[in-house]
């Protein structure tokens, strides 16, 4: 277990480093820099600005400098706004994290409940209804879902107000984000639950006269959870990138918005900061869910 964990952690670190490198060199390969657009800037001013952000040095040296600062915890300063990138990331991440964690929770809880329900009522109408809707939701891209929700519930019916910082209503954005993973988790839970319910130990438990609730919650559900746990990593990644779009549609100033505007503005420190932050989050969530999976499933051997 220890050997495996160390290996995985090392792989994760390498991955994040590679992402940082790709982003840095790819970003610098784009013609034009952060200060190319400002028409009025005099060459002298431009030179000073470029010196300020180390842009006058060769790309390789810039990367090393960035890594050194990064190791000290310095994300740099935005070339556009002049604010600390880390401050921007953490304030906007507070909003994204709230949105994301609510969406993850909704998707997990609803998916587990609906999936178990569908498995237990196999072939009856609740199963059919659940499977019908989950099949449908898997086919709807989140941006379309977000726009349709906004159109129907905000404009036509007027049930929810449009999102604003002073009056944040997360219902619609959370729904737009959570429906796809919820549908996926439902299908996952259903198939793994059906698999578990057919096992011998379930029959044994029933034969012993264990109460049906106990059989379901203690014997079946706990084992059926294993595949769902592995999905938590990809789920987080999905939610984080999905919020890129959903935040745009609902006009929420979260981390995704800063990532997109950062790219559009050639704001090098901002692009690097948001990319590394998001990548670290995603990679570590995948890592945690994989390690957790290995820890709870005795059938898995460690290679």
């Amino acid at each position: 277990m220890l050997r495996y964990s160390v290996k995985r952690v090392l792989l994760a670190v390498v991955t994040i480093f590679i992402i940082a490198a790709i982003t840095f060199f790819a970003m610098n390969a784009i013609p034009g820099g952060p200060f190319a657009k400002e028409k009025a800037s005099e060459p002298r001013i431009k030179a000073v600005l470029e010196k300020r952000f180390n842009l006058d040095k060769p790309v390789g040296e810039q990367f090393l400098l960035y890594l050194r600062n990064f190791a000290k915890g310095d994300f740099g300063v935005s070339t556009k706004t002049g604010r600390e990138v880390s401050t921007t990331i953490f304030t906007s991440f507070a909003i994204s994290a709230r949105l994301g964690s609510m969406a993850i929770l909704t998707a997990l809880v609803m998916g587990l409940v609906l999936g178990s329900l569908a498995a237990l009522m196999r072939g009856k109408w609740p199963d059919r209804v659940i499977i019908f809707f989950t099949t449908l939701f898997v086919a709807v891209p989140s941006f379309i879902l977000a726009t349709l929700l906004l159109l129907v519930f905000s404009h036509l019916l007027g049930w929810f107000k449009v999102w604003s910082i002073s009056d944040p209503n997360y219902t619609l954005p959370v729904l737009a984000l959570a429906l796809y993973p919820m549908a996926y988790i439902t299908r996952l839970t259903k198939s793994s639950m059906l698999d578990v319910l057919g096992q011998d130990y379930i029959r044994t438990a029933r034969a012993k006269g264990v109460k049906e609730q106990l059989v379901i919650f203690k014997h079946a559900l706990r084992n059926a959870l294993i595949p769902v746990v592995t999905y938590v990593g990809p789920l987080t990644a999905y939610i984080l990138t999905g919020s890129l779009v959903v935040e745009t549609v609902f006009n929420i100033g979260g981390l995704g918005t800063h990532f997109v505007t950062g790219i559009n503005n050639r704001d090098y420190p901002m692009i690097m900061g948001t990319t590394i932050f998001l990548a670290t989050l995603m990679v570590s969530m995948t890592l945690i869910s994989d390690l957790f999976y290995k820890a709870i499933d005795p059938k898995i051997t460690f290679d």
Partner: protein
Amino acid sequence: MSDYTADTSPRKKPLSLQLDPGMFERATDEEKAQHEVMRESTTFFRDGLRRLSRNPLSMLSIATLLLLLITIFVAPLIVPYKYSEVIKVDGQRDRTTANLRPMTYSVLEQEKVDAGEKVFPHIFGTDELGRDYFIRVIYGARVSLAVGFFASIIVLVIGLLYGSVSGYVGGRTDIIMMRIVDIIYSLPDTLMVVMLSVVLDQVLGDSLKGTILASLGNNMISMFVVFGLLYWVGMARLVRGQILAIKNNEYVLAAKALGGNARRIILKHILPNCISVIFIATALQIPSAIFVESFLSFIGLGVQAPMPSLGSLANLARGGMQIYPYKMLFPALGICLIVLSFNLLGDGLRDAFDPRLRR
């Protein structure tokens, strides 16, 4: 033909090992009938097709996709408008052609209709520049489907080559190749897709001018490159797994003993045995490619204007959504229909062809 009975059959010598025909009973007609072949012998492929045709959802999605394909190829021949053409009446620009509602005519067109002339109706209305929206949605569906299809082919080719080599050669090569796959696999794909599309789009710049590829546009090319760079890893893993499972079979050993080279063994003996699994994975790749394309188009990194795709149409429709909600509805429905059909078809194919799921 002699007819043996207990009386006519030649007597068996007491100590001979010859069987005594007299001991046997003749089969009745009913018993003979049991040996008749009741069902035609079937191949793996035909058996899969039979299973597939019994699945109503798969058949429905095949029908939907066929209908869609026919529509997107036939409609541009029938509808007299072009996707980038601003509608003019008798060569005259009509201001009222912009933002027409479905099945309505502009003022000048209405005059013509009243005069008894025939004007082809705007089935989905027109967009804000006065272009026929129906034909734009049709072309959008064309672009989206084409992207999905070609992206899957790219993924298939790269994944197949990489996976075959890695799985067949094995040893240290396999370990190194799979480490690379592991790393690419753990890259957050959407982040990288956004990043790479922006970069490639700029880097390509004018370098494509004058080539055939130029007509596709830089965005489209960079999208394919991104697919080629990022999404092949799943396919490579799948192919490697299949090859590992098959390569230790005796017939592969026999082929090796007869002096078959690696290329021949992989192409002739291994791939045909796992082609169904690979084929299904490719089919399931199409909807996810369409998803990515529509996502990129939606945030403005997809196909280039004036070429429409379902994603970019949906993005454009977002602006006037309160007044013209149907403009959002048509491309949205298009994406959902295509993705849903491919998903259901993929599930059906897997149930019908995957040897692991057969009972």
